[in-house]
């Protein structure tokens, strides 16, 4: 059964996106990409050292992966736009994850500035994935201005608390047509499975893999969980279509 997931012009087999910060050593990123079979990898432009091959995190990301630079460090729309343009000019492709955070205490995103940056960058031809607090009105606006997906947080970055925003994310799943990718907060594979079961299109995981005792093995665990959650979601859908079955086994006697 093929269950291809599309964002922009890319068709993806894996619904697990991974982050590259926080690993104990850079070459491990490559091993985690292999074990997790992830096809989309986010990298903070602020940390890419283009001058030294062994220090350049891009060295460890296979060509086959979609590179999704992020605007970590941006405090407003203007900085996010500048970081995105620097990333593209440096050859990092045209995907961009917008991260605008003006709050260093909780690391919560600034939805308004994120929206502004999204609008500008979509017009500039980027495939834009905004990281945001799960607010329906804002998510609709992100969609309206051309976001390729929306990335609501499950809980604050690095908190490993799971999907605390579940009810809000569920509303986004119901109302927003572009893919919903839960980003931040997922601390365990079971929580990734939960997000997928709910009907999220993908999840992004960094801290939980990077700071595990064995990140490579944890990458595989997440891959399995995401796959299981997705299968469960699809299986659930199949049950629902059974209700729609034209054969009406329960009420056929009325005909």
């Amino acid at each position, binding site marked *: 059964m093929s269950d291809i997931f599309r964002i922009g012009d890319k068709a993806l087999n894996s619904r697990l996106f991974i982050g590259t*910060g*926080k*690993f*104990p*050593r*850079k070459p491990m990123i490559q091993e985690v990409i292999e074990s997790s079979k992830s096809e989309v990898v986010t990298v903070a*432009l*602020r*940390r*890419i*050292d283009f001058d*030294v091959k062994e*220090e350049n995190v891009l060295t460890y990301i296979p060509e086959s992966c979609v590179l999704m630079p992020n605007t970590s*460090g941006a*405090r407003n729309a203007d*900085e996010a736009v*500048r*970081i995105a343009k*620097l990333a593209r000019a440096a050859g990092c492709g045209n995907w961009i994850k917008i991260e605008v955070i*003006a*709050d*260093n*205490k*909780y*690391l919560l995103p600034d939805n308004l500035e994120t929206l502004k940056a999204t609008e500008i960058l979509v017009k500039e031809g980027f495939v834009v994935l905004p990281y945001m607090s799960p607010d329906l009105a804002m998510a609709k606006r992100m969609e309206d201005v051309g976001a390729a997906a929306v990335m609501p947080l499950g809980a604050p970055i*690095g*908190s*490993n608390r799971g999907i605390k925003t579940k009810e809000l994310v569920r509303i986004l799943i119901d109302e927003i047509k572009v893919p919903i990718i839960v980003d931040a907060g997922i601390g365990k594979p079971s929580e990734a499975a939960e997000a997928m079961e709910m009907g999220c299109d993908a999840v992004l995981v*960094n*801290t939980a893999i*990077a*700071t595990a005792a064995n990140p490579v093995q944890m990458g595989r665990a997440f891959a399995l969980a995401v796959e299981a959650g997705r299968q469960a979601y699809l299986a659930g859908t199949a049950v629902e279509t059974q209700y729609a079955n034209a054969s009406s086994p329960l009420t056929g006697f009325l005909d």
Partner: protein
Amino acid sequence: MSFYEVYNQYKNMDFEGYFSKLTENDIHRIINKDKISALEFLALLSPVAKGSLELMARKANVLTKQNFGKAMILYTPLYLGNYCVNQCAYCGFNVNNPIPRKKLALDEVELEAKAIADTGLRHILILTGESRKGTSVDYIEECVKVINKYATVSIEIYPLEQEEYERLIKAGVDGLTLYQEVYNEQIYDEIHIRGPKKDYLNRLNAPERACKAKMRNVNIGALLGLDDWEKEAFFTGLHGQYLQDKYADTEISVSLPRMRPHAGAFTPKVNVDDKSFVQIMLALRLFMPRAGITISTREEPEFRENVLPLGVTKMSAGTTTAVGGRTQKEDTVQFDTSDKRTVDEIKEMLLSKGYQPVFKDWQLL
């Protein structure tokens, strides 16, 4: 409102009395809390809390991993000049010390920056003494532009006005380090014998001016040894929290500089032993889980390695405290460094301990 009001609120409190009422149970309860109040932070700095360092360390380790991962940001200091008009009792650069004075010419700055960049480092902390004549803001601005070709730049210089910070930020500065030295106002007055640094409030409010100017990173600290460390660490934490609450778009970090020997004789008032140093670091991490904690090459190599998992997020490497120390003869050393390892050696050490050395952490926009 400035941090001075917060300082005044607590400066006359009965620290001893408060400490004497604490029990081990109180400490355990505090360690288990998600959010710690100012007085609870103070409790973690108490003698009673010394019995719970291992528990505090476990929590600090988890919080640090969650917030910063297994990454360690590296930077190196670059001394631009040692002209100084102040007489600080504890410092080898002070105006009364007959040491050779100099500042680097712009081409020398470039050579130093290049030498640093060749080691892989991409972040430089530039330092000067306090002399608006010897090392003027104009001069510093020119230096920043030169260094920016090789690295991002933070400054550890005399306190500036908000507009001056704005100017330097525009030139490419992304961080400020400014230690209050000592929060105790009376001791501050005694050991800053003469010079503009005598102005306690001007220094105390400088980090806030930098936040107002939209500095990305602001790093504060107290020179440990000048007054009771419990109080100094307490005020450092309160200062950090005050800035973090008010200027959420600036990353706040804290350094824990311990006094080192230098040219000239000054005996620290208190000796901050390793155990107390660790206690300060842990209490700060539990109080401010998101704050950066910097540990410099003032500390011994083995000690630096041991405290890595306890909250540290930034380290200096390949350090010299001499003006032009990388490309010229060393004859102007502010204080001795303990960790003299090369950048490569620090890098290997970090990797072997399960930490990723981060050389570049900001991209000039």
